[in-house]
């Protein structure tokens, strides 16, 4: 999961790229897709995406929010329909 969070003029824009499925996860004959991507800032969920199988397999998702400062941290987490999940914390630049 590659994340960029950039602060500019009161708005923090977040770009998320999830390499999915990775080779170690790939299972033959099973529909695999990311079900959920969430972003938390200061204990609140600011962005929650429920994704279906029609979303591209290595999704690139971007969104933006207000209220954060440079140097603050955000937590991102995704999980798929097979029980895999990943968490990552990034600092806003």
């Amino acid at each position: 999961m590659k994340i960029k969070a950039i602060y500019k003029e009161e708005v923090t824009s977040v770009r998320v790229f999830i390499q999915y499925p990775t080779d170690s996860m790939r299972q033959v004959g099973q529909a695999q897709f990311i079900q959920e991507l969430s972003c938390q800032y200061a204990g609140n969920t600011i962005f929650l995406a429920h994704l279906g199988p029609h979303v591209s397999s290595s999704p690139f998702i971007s969104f933006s929010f207000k209220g954060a400062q440079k140097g603050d941290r955000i937590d991102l987490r995704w999980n798929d329909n097979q029980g895999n999940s990943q968490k990552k914390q990034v600092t806003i630049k």
Partner: protein
Amino acid sequence: MLPRRRFIETASLSLIALLTPIQAIAAWASQAFKANSLDAAYQQLFNSTSFTTTRKIQILTPQTAKNPSAVPLKINANLPNVQSISIFIETANSPLVATFQLSATTSPFFSTHIKMVKTDVVIVVVKTAEKLYSNRKKITLINNHCGS
């Protein structure tokens, strides 16, 4: 020492208790994603099938897409108090593509990539604190990669 049966019971119960919070977080809208018609998906998600059509929802995408496995989609909902934005493909087997829930501080603008098997209409439904709005756009898919 606990008898074996009791041990297994307590162990499995505590395991369930441990797993529950994760399950609770992953409350994925499976019924809406499984719905095989637009109206059924709408009903699952919004409890309603009538929306106000507005041009304030901008669907920014190329009119023709060349790569069916990654059609770029940018959505800008120029409306106040947006709570969620959902994307549908009109004639797909399961029309719901994704639904995004936003907080009050999140801008109602985002981008993603979707898969499309053929030329189809993308419908975006925006739920605000007051009302449901929607807009649609046809995306033409060029199947041969020589097309320009």
